[in-house]
């Protein structure tokens, strides 16, 4: 097959799978808790800076993972406790509050690291021959990790006790509370999982993009689009949203140009908000 088409096909797969993993944290926080977390991109940014700090400190790249979990975990818990807890079930208020939070986090990053670009070197540089075309190894690895992370979360959410408790909390908080589930603690834990997932997404993409305080803005729009198009509160919604947004963007960018790809993404999001606001997979 034509190597151009093969490479573009892998690009589409790459676009979809990384978008799914980047949207995962938002899917948990927005999809399950109903919190419109505008600061989602900033948690991705924090993860990327954790990768930078780990690398600048001379540690192996994998050391960025525990660092990010600690930083995003503590930050997520503090934010949930101080800011989000009084605002559950008030989606618009959470939007305004997390918007303020995103400004604050960006300023903190600016104060700590300055506005300049930081570059994180690729832990696995080079390309590998695949189906007759050279493709960067690290990007292939990201596809595999993204699929693994999403699959693991799907299984955990579907099979574990905590998963079923969360589902109970999401569908009827009062009844869940009456059943002896501590909704407050469970919600806090869910929020922290969301911020940690965002941070992990940041560690994954850090070597590929400019790391700077504003980088989160690049992700917040696309990840929200994924949930709008896919639908809230289900894994199939997340996946179909990622396939629709990431796929449309990559396919049209490959077939014509990036401007049309971006235009199609915006058009798709508007169409869904207008005609099918509950998304492809409406929560049942």
């Amino acid at each position, binding site marked *: 097959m034509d190597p151009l088409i093969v*490479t*573009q096909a892998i690009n589409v797969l*790459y676009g979809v799978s990384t978008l799914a993993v980047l949207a995962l944290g938002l899917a948990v926080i927005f999809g399950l808790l109903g919190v419109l977390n505008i600061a989602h991109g900033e948690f991705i940014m924090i993860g990327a800076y954790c990768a930078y700090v780990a690398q600048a400190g001379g540690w192996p790249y994998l050391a960025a993972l525990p660092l990010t979990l600690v930083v995003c975990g503590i930050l997520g818990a503090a934010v949930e406790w101080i800011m989000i807890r009084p605002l559950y079930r008030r989606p618009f208020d959470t939007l305004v509050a997390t918007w303020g939070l995103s400004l604050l986090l960006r300023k903190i990053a600016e104060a700590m690291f300055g506005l300049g670009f930081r570059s994180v070197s*690729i832990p696995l540089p080079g390309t590998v021959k695949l189906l007759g075309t050279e493709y960067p190894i690290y990007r292939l690895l990201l596809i595999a990790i993204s699929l693994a992370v999403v699959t693991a979360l799907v299984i955990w959410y579907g099979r574990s006790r905590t998963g079923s408790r969360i589902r109970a909390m999401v569908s009827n908080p009062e009844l869940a509370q009456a059943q002896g589930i501590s909704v407050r603690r469970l919600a806090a834990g869910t929020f922290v999982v969301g911020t940690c997932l965002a941070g992990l997404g940041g560690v994954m993409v850090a070597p*590929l993009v400019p790391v700077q305080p504003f980088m989160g803005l690049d992700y917040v729009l696309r990840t929200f689009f994924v949930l709008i198009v896919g639908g809230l509160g289900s894994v199939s919604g997340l996946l179909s949203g990622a396939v629709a947004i990431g796929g449309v963007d990559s396919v049209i*960018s490959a077939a014509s140009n*990036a401007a049309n790809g971006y235009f199609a993404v915006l058009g798709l999001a508007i169409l869904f908000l207008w005609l099918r606001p509950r998304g492809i997979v409406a929560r049942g």
Partner: protein
Amino acid sequence: MSIQNQGPTRRTLLGAAAAGAALGTLPGLIRPAAAAGEFKIGLFAALSGPASLFGPTQKACAELATEEINKSGGILGRQIKLIPTDAGGPPAESTKSAIRLMLEENVDMFVGSHDSATREALVATIKGKVPYIYTPVYEGSECAFNTYVIADTPEQQIRPSVAFMMKDRGAKSVYLIGDDYVWPRKCNEQAKKYIAENGGSVVAEEYVPFGAPNKFEEIVTRIKSAKPDMVLITLVGADNVNFNRTFAGFGLDKDIARLSLLLEENTLLGIGPDSSSNLFSSMSYFANAPGEANKKFKAAYFAKFGDKAPQLGLIGADCYGGIYCAQALATKAGGTDAKKCMAASEGLTFPTAAGQVTMRGRHVDKTMFLATCKGTEFDIIKTFDDVKSGDECKA
């Protein structure tokens, strides 16, 4: 809202008219008082927004020039007061600031280091009422009344560097990639002429939306299959970093040269040592450019700001020349009268970070450098002396 308040009453209308009349006469009342005092320069710099990483350098370099000029007596005996103003947001925000600076602060001059979309908006707002000096790199052909350009033009930035890449490096086919706004599109129009002059060909021309969260896997794949000898890059900031990292990530840097038209020290730090091989930049200033003038400028810069000095680069160092241009212009014209400034600008000489320059046709002839990237440092491989702006404006 109550029913009484639904429309303006006769009294509020009269009040508004009176206030309007008062506002109209105010600047006239203030101007003579201000004229005797400070010489106010409105400095348009990127204090917020995606370009704001340049802001600290722009401010620092302008402050350095201001301090030096004030120590030696100021402009026409008046001390300069620098008013840094944000031009990092949308152009409409900058034009609002321009109006405020003209009406409330009565600024004597404007110096601006920002993108071309903002420049066009500012030119249309200032309307030549206050001299306006534009400093970074740009696409050429700005000949608005009472507007002075010390920025690198395509004739200076693109023509010699493209000719060198094609003749010396054998780059015959070129792929053009840029952000979608006025600077990249007009630069590429010029670049196509220069490429044709050297017997080369343009393989493709492509633009990505400016300010959108762009990704470059698909574009880099397209470039790979088009197999050009060189890519001419008019992407800016984060897009430039992102593109170059993706380009090298796909292993294209070995066979295809890249010439970027807005690649300075900050951007190169983002691109990083693993993605910067076979990458070239053409500009009138690099922090490590040779020459006595730059040595003196850097000594003064680091003496003033010390270890915490913001990263030096063309975007920032241009403001140093901008302030000196303002001084030279006002001194030679004996004030800021538009017609006198226009006349004085011809043959005007003033210092910049890179050395003394002379203004002709409200543009500047200058020495240009072509650098290749070694890790995150620039290595100047070619110097083009006294390159004409090619953009001389008629009076």
